């Protein structure tokens, strides 16, 4: 979304963009299971988080199973944890050949689209982002993550066919999310972070690019999230064409910032677990200020958690993070 990107690039003030759907769920006393299966509950959780913390941006849940489930993978949903894919849907070329690109009425896709729609119509004056999985991570969930890592070398044709089906589906899904009126989509591609730069380009970025070309414009931004990248595949991420890149805590963010062109939004990368969940507010504040100071010469930086904040993250730590951002903004 051009307006939002310009507002980041043209202001010295830092935007804070923590990924906080779990705290939202807890704020309203719901279960993870109800939030990932009922669009209304998910919307209310997002709303609770954005109102409680007065956030200018928010995003829908990072649920890495909803797309795989639509393709036919079995999913197990515990009450208070993120859902899990059970077993392996695809084993060989013939399975991949027979695999159908699912329609958007499959599984929990309608619930997610409803959540997006309700957020757009009811949460005003905030920039709302949809969420989905990336093509390589989706393919890995269908084919088994360790197996796909080997098969990109031993059976590249099978994996490329699978990836083309995954990205065809993600084009449809992203278009549907876009039509709800959200400002963009955070596409989570963690598994691609385990690849070399070259493989990340061939088996992830080339497919992300196809989606970007279909959906990204002045009104809709693709934010490519890759918390697996420890620095080796930043170039491949840039080549996806996404207008914003979101990094995890495995990377040195100043290194990533120096690699990225200045018009590209770079987001990240405070540790969601050891900092947000397990530290105290003082430590959160300190680390947040430290990161803001370290990155202050990069106007394209948006401070964020390196990944979705886990369940039971203390709310006072999120407040300390936001206070630190405010404090920094006052000082400039």
């Amino acid at each position: 979304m051009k307006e939002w990107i310009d507002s980041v690039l043209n202001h010295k003030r830092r935007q804070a963009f923590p990924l906080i759907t779990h705290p939202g769920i807890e704020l309203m006393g719901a279960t993870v299971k109800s939030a990932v299966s009922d669009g209304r509950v998910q919307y209310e959780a997002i709303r609770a988080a954005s109102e409680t913390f007065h956030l200018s941006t928010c995003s829908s849940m990072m649920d890495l199973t909803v797309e795989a489930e639509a393709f036919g993978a079995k999913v197990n949903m515990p009450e208070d944890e993120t859902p899990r894919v059970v077993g392996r849907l695809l084993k060989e070329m013939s399975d991949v050949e027979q695999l159908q690109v699912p329609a958007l009425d499959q599984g929990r896709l309608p619930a997610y689209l409803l959540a997006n729609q309700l957020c757009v119509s009811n949460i005003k004056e905030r920039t709302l982002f949809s969420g989905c999985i990336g093509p390589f991570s989706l393919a890995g969930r269908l084919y088994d993550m360790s197996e796909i890592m080997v098969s990109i070398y031993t059976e590249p044709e099978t994996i490329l066919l699978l990836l083309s089906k995954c990205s065809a589906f993600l084009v449809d899904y992203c278009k549907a999310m876009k039509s709800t009126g959200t400002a963009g989509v955070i596409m989570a591609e963690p598994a691609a972070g385990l690849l070399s730069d070259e493989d990340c380009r061939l088996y992830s970025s080339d497919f992300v690019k196809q989606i970007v070309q279909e959906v990204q414009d002045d009104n809709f931004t693709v934010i490519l999230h890759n918390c697996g990248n420890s620095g080796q595949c930043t170039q491949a991420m840039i080549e996806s064409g996404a207008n914003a890149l979101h990094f995890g805590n495995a990377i040195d963010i100043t290194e990533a910032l120096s690699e990225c062109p200045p018009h590209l939004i770079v987001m990240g990368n405070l540790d969601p677990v050891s900092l947000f969940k397990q530290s105290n507010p003082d430590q959160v504040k300190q680390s947040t200020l430290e990161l803001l100071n370290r990155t202050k010469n990069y106007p394209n930086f948006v401070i964020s958690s390196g990944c979705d904040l886990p369940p039971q993250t203390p709310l006072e730590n999120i407040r300390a993070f936001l206070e630190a951002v405010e404090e920094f903004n006052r000082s400039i």
Partner: protein
Amino acid sequence: MKLELINKLFECVEFGKININSPYPPQMKGLPGADEITQEALVAGVNPDEILNRALIAAMNKVGEKFTEKKIFVPQMLLSAKAMNASMNHLKPYFADGSVKRKGVFIVGTVFGDLHDIGKNLLSMMVEGAGWEVIDLGIDVNTEAFVEKVKEYPDAVVGISALLTTTMVNIEPVIKAIKQASPATKVIVGGAPLTAAFAASIGADAYGKNPREGIIWLDLQSQKMNN
């Protein structure tokens, strides 16, 4: 001739050449892989012990180093492990009849609630490559499954992996149950969010930051058991 075969096998494992049909790595396309060369070596009378130690274990050691130095990544490491497995399959008869001794039995799994298995798979393949018999229980492994296997293999060492803060706490009850069923059984834990201090606090006997650290500790256990 024998040395040449050992060197060739080392190379297959280092570069992940599984068998003649595997297209990877491109520069070895159409050439025999770990599978065929192992058979050839055994026919040529190479000692299986030498195949294990001088080719497989040595190559996996090198692969582990390259991974630590970020010269190779997860796919390349898994391919090396697959090549090693292809070779190891031909050595199984010698393990079974006792002519080649393995260092011990290693039972490994990702703790219940957790589905991350790439690290656990690398570990299990590296440990196998280091000369252990590995029983991989998979992911989301509950306490009963660990305990049952420990009862079946009372001399085994157990490895437990967790990648989530929400699941690393699940390791503690598993260790308790294992120790209750078999007090002498040793347990090593690992996975990105764990630390040595955490491992000690839940009653684990050791923590391994990576497979190499794990293997060093495991080999020590094997020496103790065999003395």
